[in-house]
């Protein structure tokens, strides 16, 4: 990385076109209100937290070369694990019509579905940020995209593995025993130094968007083993193994309908499994002659490991309704429920946002866990129904 930073420093001088880069970003004040008292020792009642994510962008020669730097920092009132710093991006790119080469720490998204992102395996999940696993840690990478009329081929070399973040002992929304990520174990002899490789081919043809992906390297999803922490308390220790994964993502747009499929086949620890997310999003523009849009989301989540799957989603259904108000404040509300029809478990979610003025935005989120069985991987969250309110200031 040292070499790269030197490169970044001298590059503007080399190109001779030093113009000031742009700064932007946001600061978020977040409050989490829990409806029930905590189940476990050391867990707080409510929580308060502050995060900042500035972004610096510098382009040269009409953006043929560019540098993006995006650090992230969160300060949490209760959980030292959630107080964390990450370099989301520190990436230098050479951009051409037919190819793009990037080197540094970057973020990549693959896939089409909403409930979960099966094929999206480049970046590790920053799980302390949110249960929905949408927040990702920056990944060191060399990334080459070849852009042709017949599709885009992308090659990745991924040196350096990022461990998943987990809520600590002093956090809500955690398992019991808590997960001690300071003792993480690896099945590869190289530990977290294993160099991972990935390839993706994607294309758009008419109403179809599709992608095929391949990954070999350290599984971003850890298994767990029992252990004890410094104080002799029982803990869960993440165990990272190597995996092979092939993935497919397909999307068809047809009028108001978006049809979606993500499918993976994964081999890890000598066993194989398949998982899919499939469904649709239907958008009704201008409901009943108004200017509101109504979106209906249905996705079916399947995992061949059944109830043994260390995931929420083994044979579940997501039903969601998105209201887009199309007002000047860009207000939106998403109501959803993830249903496990066999176990009669329900996870309700609400996500809403509205713009307060040119710089401020209000985000509201709620989760309700209902009917969790002792066998559920999130049984320990049964008292953690919460309402989260965020005031976000953009600069």
């Amino acid at each position, binding site marked *: 990385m040292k070499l790269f930073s030197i490169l970044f420093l001298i590059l503007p001088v080399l190109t001779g076109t030093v113009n000031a880069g742009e700064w932007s970003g946001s600061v978020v004040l977040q409050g989490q209100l829990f409806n029930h008292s905590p189940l476990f020792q050391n867990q707080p009642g409510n929580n308060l937290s502050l995060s900042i994510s500035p972004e610096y962008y510098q382009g040269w020669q009409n953006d043929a070369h560019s540098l993006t730097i995006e650090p992230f920092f969160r300060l949490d009132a209760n959980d030292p694990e959630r107080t964390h710093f990450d370099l989301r991006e520190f990436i230098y790119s050479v951009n051409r019509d037919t190819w793009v080469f990037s080197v540094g720490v970057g973020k990549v998204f693959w896939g089409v579905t909403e409930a979960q992102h099966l094929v999206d395996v480049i970046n590790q999940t920053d799980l302390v940020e949110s249960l929905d696993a*949408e927040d990702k840690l920056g990944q060191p990478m060399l990334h080459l995209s070849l852009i042709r009329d017949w599709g885009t081929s992308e090659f990745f070399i991924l040196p350096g593995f990022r461990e998943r973040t987990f809520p600590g002992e002093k956090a809500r929304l955690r398992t019991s025993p808590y997960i001690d990520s300071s003792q993480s174990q690896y099945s590869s002899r190289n530990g977290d130094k294993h160099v991972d490789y990935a390839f993706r081919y994607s294309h758009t043809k008419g109403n179809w968007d599709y992608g095929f992906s391949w990954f070999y390297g350290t599984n971003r999803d850890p298994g767990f083993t029992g252990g004890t922490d410094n104080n002799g308390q029982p803990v869960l220790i993440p165990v990272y193994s190597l995996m092979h994964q092939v993935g497919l993502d397909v*999307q068809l*747009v047809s*009028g108001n*309908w978006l049809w979606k499929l993500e499918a993976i086949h994964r081999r890890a620890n000598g066993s194989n499994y398949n998982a899919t997310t499939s469904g649709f999003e239907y958008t009704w523009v201008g409901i009943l002659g108004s200017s509101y849009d109504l979106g209906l989301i249905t996705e079916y989540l399947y995992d061949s490991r059944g109830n043994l799957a260390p995931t929420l989603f083994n044979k579940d259904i997501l039903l969601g309704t998105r209201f887009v108000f*199309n007002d*000047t404040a*860009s207000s939106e509300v998403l109501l959803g429920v993830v249903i496990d029809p066999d176990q009669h478990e329900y996870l309700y979610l609400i996500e809403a946002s509205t*713009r307060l003025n040119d710089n401020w935005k209000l985000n509201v989120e709620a989760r309700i866990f209902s009917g969790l069985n002792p066998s559920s991987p999130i049984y320990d969250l049964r008292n953690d129904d919460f309402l989260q309110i965020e005031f976000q200031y953009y*600069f």
Partner: protein
Amino acid sequence: MPRILLTLLLLLTSAVALAQTPEERGLEIAKEADKRDTGWGDQKSSTRMVLHNRHGQTSIRKMHNRSLEVIGDGDKSIIIFDQPRDVKGTAFLSFSHAVKPDDQWLYLPALKRVKRISSNNKSGPFMGSEFAYEDLSSQEVAKYTYKFLKNDTLDGRDVFVIERFPAYKHSGYKRQIAYVDKKMYQPLKVIFFDRKNALYKTLYFKKYHQYLNHYWRANTMQMVNHQSGKSTELIWESISFKNGFNDADFNRNSLKRAR
């Protein structure tokens, strides 16, 4: 004898002219307008949108746009949002089509995600403004059927008054009345009627400038919604042609790095 022939010929041609129906005349004007606006190639611009609500409060949107002329189909365009700050960096790619739904993708920079948008939303509001997507996409002859109403004057300029009916079945409009300047073959005013045929909106085109000694572009477009009392002005702060754009500048890959 020749005189008789000439008279006959004159009679015949005027008969042909008379035989042109208002529909044919309307289409002819639309085709001429299209012909005069063909060949501009590509275009880059920065725009500001001022949204006025009923109570006189305003809010500002800023964006910059790139478009590529596609002969025989709708144009390709990318819009990159600059303001409000929460949507800064969000980019919208559209392949517009006259009669079938547009192809649309949205890039969400926080997630690095390109999302396909189901595209029957041509009638939906653009960024909470009084403009619908279909008001802003490229004007193609096949988008409407036409009917010439009359010759008239508007603010001292000679205009054709043409009624046009959207060919796209999910259009938000039943019909429009366009006042087309006879010199520029560009609209000065368009009156929109909603699907129930009630007066809906009026769009005014102001401050036309000619570029490359040929192409006319209005510097300001003002859309007034008669039903809600709201209005939106769309103001071009800069515009340039001959940027050398090609198809490669308008795909999912270029959308991800559009600045």
